[in-house]
């Protein structure tokens, strides 16, 4: 009989514990806590919010948005580019009442954001990456920044600071945006000294800390003395480079806290600008832009404050170029023919000038003469 008694006592305990858990869960839930604000905005990141890189640049802007009156911000990090992001968007809409959503990773767009947008026509979706066309649903759009000139300015400072005349670039994948950054960095440096070269290593992944550290060390071993990068999280490259005594130009966000003495400057996204524009338009009941882009003059991209190591000559040229870029309002061009790629083939004929808005730059598939490395 002991067995039976034991059975019932344990079952009672178990059942009452489970009942209590469910009951408490149902009664204590604060219903409608998120329903009272005029606008709930959702931000979705592909990586961690504090990655010192791409995702942090968005999270910093989200934090700025959070301080706007009447705005509730909901955020989710580490969301893969699979149905997970669809479910995250739907969850933000259904459970948090979000009516404006910013999926910030390139791969969220097609099919995930487009399909979700068709299903929820009353919710506005704005995707970071500039993929939108007028064939896409009316409640979608995209925004992106032109950051090539930021890497050009990085290149100017790096060109002044290098002694070995060898610069390094740790790159993720040989896609057009990355290639444009590498080429711009080279062209910036070559305004200081046309013999400067940029040694480039592709890691093959957007975020692969071990390979990024290996690549940075390999660059240091080859005599490179200033490094920049285009990977999702520049943290590893910045710390490794500074640890090896190299100067660093940052990317995506401000990494100066990681290497205060060695950080020269950096090309940063300033997403606060498009986000506040979208939100103000939504609050005012006006249509939101659907194909929004901008560079340094429009405030979409900014430069990190110059570090303590930067020489006065470097600062002078940096400031002057930055002023020219701002004055030219989007017409400033650094990709100007004649330009040859590093296999000797002419890629930009003489007389051709591509400002940062030029559509031709979006299918860039070459590394200019002076870049050591290969796209394949």
């Amino acid at each position, binding site marked *: 009989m002991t067995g039976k008694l034991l*059975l019932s006592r344990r079952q009672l305990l178990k059942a009452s514990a489970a009942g209590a858990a469910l009951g408490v869960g149902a009664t204590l*839930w604060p219903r409608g806590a998120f329903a009272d604000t005029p606008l709930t905005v959702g931000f979705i990141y592909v990586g961690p919010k504090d990655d010192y890189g791409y995702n942090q640049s968005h999270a910093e802007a989200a934090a700025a948005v959070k301080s706007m009156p009447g705005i509730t911000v909901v955020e989710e990090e580490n969301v*893969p580019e699979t149905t997970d992001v669809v479910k995250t968007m739907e969850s933000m809409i259904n459970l948090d009442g979000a009516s404006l959503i910013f999926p910030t990773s390139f791969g969220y767009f097609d099919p995930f954001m487009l399909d979700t947008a068709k299903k929820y026509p009353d919710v506005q979706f704005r995707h970071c990456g500039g993929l939108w066309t007028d064939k896409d649903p009316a409640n979608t759009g995209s925004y992106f920044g032109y950051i090539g000139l930021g890497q050009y300015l990085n290149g100017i400072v790096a060109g002044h600071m290098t002694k070995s005349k060898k610069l390094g670039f740790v790159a993720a994948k040989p896609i057009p945006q990355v290639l444009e950054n590498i080429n711009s960095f080279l062209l910036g440096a070559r305004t200081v000294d046309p013999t400067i070269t940029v040694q480039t290593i592709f890691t093959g992944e957007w975020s692969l800390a071990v390979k990024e550290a290996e690549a940075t060390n390999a660059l240091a071993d080859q005599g490179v003395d200033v490094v920049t990068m285009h990977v999702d999280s520049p943290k590893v490259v910045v710390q490794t480079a500074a640890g090896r005594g190299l100067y660093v130009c940052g990317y995506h966000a401000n990494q100066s806290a990681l290497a205060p003495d060695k950080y020269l400057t950096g090309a940063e996204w300033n997403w606060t600008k498009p986000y506040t524009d979208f939100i103000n338009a939504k609050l005012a009941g006006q249509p939101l832009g659907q194909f929004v882009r901008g560079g340094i003059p429009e405030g979409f991209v900014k430069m990190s404050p110059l570090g303590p190591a930067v020489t006065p000559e470097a600062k002078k040229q940096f400031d002057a170029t930055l002023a020219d870029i701002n004055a030219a309002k989007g017409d400033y061009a650094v990709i100007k023919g004649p330009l040859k790629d590093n296999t000797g083939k002419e890629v930009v004929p003489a007389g051709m000038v591509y400002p940062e808005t030029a559509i031709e730059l979006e299918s860039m598939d070459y590394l200019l003469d002076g870049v050591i490395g290969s796209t394949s």
Partner: protein
Amino acid sequence: MADTTSSAIAVSPALAKPRVDLLIEQLARRSESIAIPVGAIIVGLAIFSVFLLCLGKSPVDFLSLMYKGGFGSSFSLENSLTRASPLLLTALCVALPARLGLVVIGGEGAVVLGGVAAAAVGVPMLGLPYVLVIGAMGIAGMAAGGVWIGIVGALRHYRGVNETIASLLMAYVGIALMNHFVEGPLRDPASLNKPSTYPIGKDYMIGNIPGMDVHWGLVAGIVACIASWVLIEKTTWGFAARISGGNVRAAQIQGLAVGPLIVGFTALAGAFAGLAGMIEVGAVQGDANASLAAGYGYTGILVAFLARHNPLAIMPVALLLGGIDAAGGLVQRRMGLPDATVLVLEGMLFIVILFSETLYGRFKLFNPDLWLRNRQ
């Protein structure tokens, strides 16, 4: 095996007893395999609650958010089921070899290669009838995954290579191969900034189960789990596999073809993972790209171990983990906890459940033979 023999012995004295007692005893025996995992989950949640309290967060909030985000509404349940779908198949990739005593943890490689093979076969066939294209893609995905994990089994049996290490390393090779094909020979030149294969197109996508926002991959996973259970428990092949898993020498002395069994089971396991990759391409992504490596192969390991490699138990466990993932976003958004929180929870559950394995047969409650002894 142990269960069946002990209950067979217990039948004879039990026959003399009244029917109610007999039922209770059977219930007690059966309930062990449910009560221990459920108890372990409760203990795991309790430990996790302490962890939350240390962070100054409310475990009650957490649990109610888990319930709300994972299971509390039809939307949440569909969210969980969608996330569970690939896990059903990738868990089988671990569970089937485990019945032969093999620990295969490289299902991720089979997933991505299955996806690439499906796209490679499907894209040139576009224009042919739907069933033909989807069928060929399924076969291609399963073949690729089957060959990949089958190699692991063959290396194990014929060359004595440790299957755990081999499968893990081959997963990295598989992902590298996927990147090579997606960025090289199979690349759609229009996929500039996110290298992908040509899309299979909306007309050839695998749709949703009618009336649900969950794609047919869920059904494929459930069918695969049930079929695997039948294979293992109800066929002579399954019986032979379990004998080999218990003692290879004994199996060989019995004249069982251990080599073909190992290769066959590992290939079937890989085929299921490959099918998961094909479904990702066919139902989710629409093309093969780097997002295929979303970690389903690795989460499948967790599911299989939690399910004690029982294909039927995989289904509720996959749903539980799918629910935890689904609720993870809500927990991030409402409680301001980082994404890693749910990983901590999953890790704690994993450890507690592994520990609970040692508890089987130790509770008098579940062993009516011991009750009898008490009575006498």
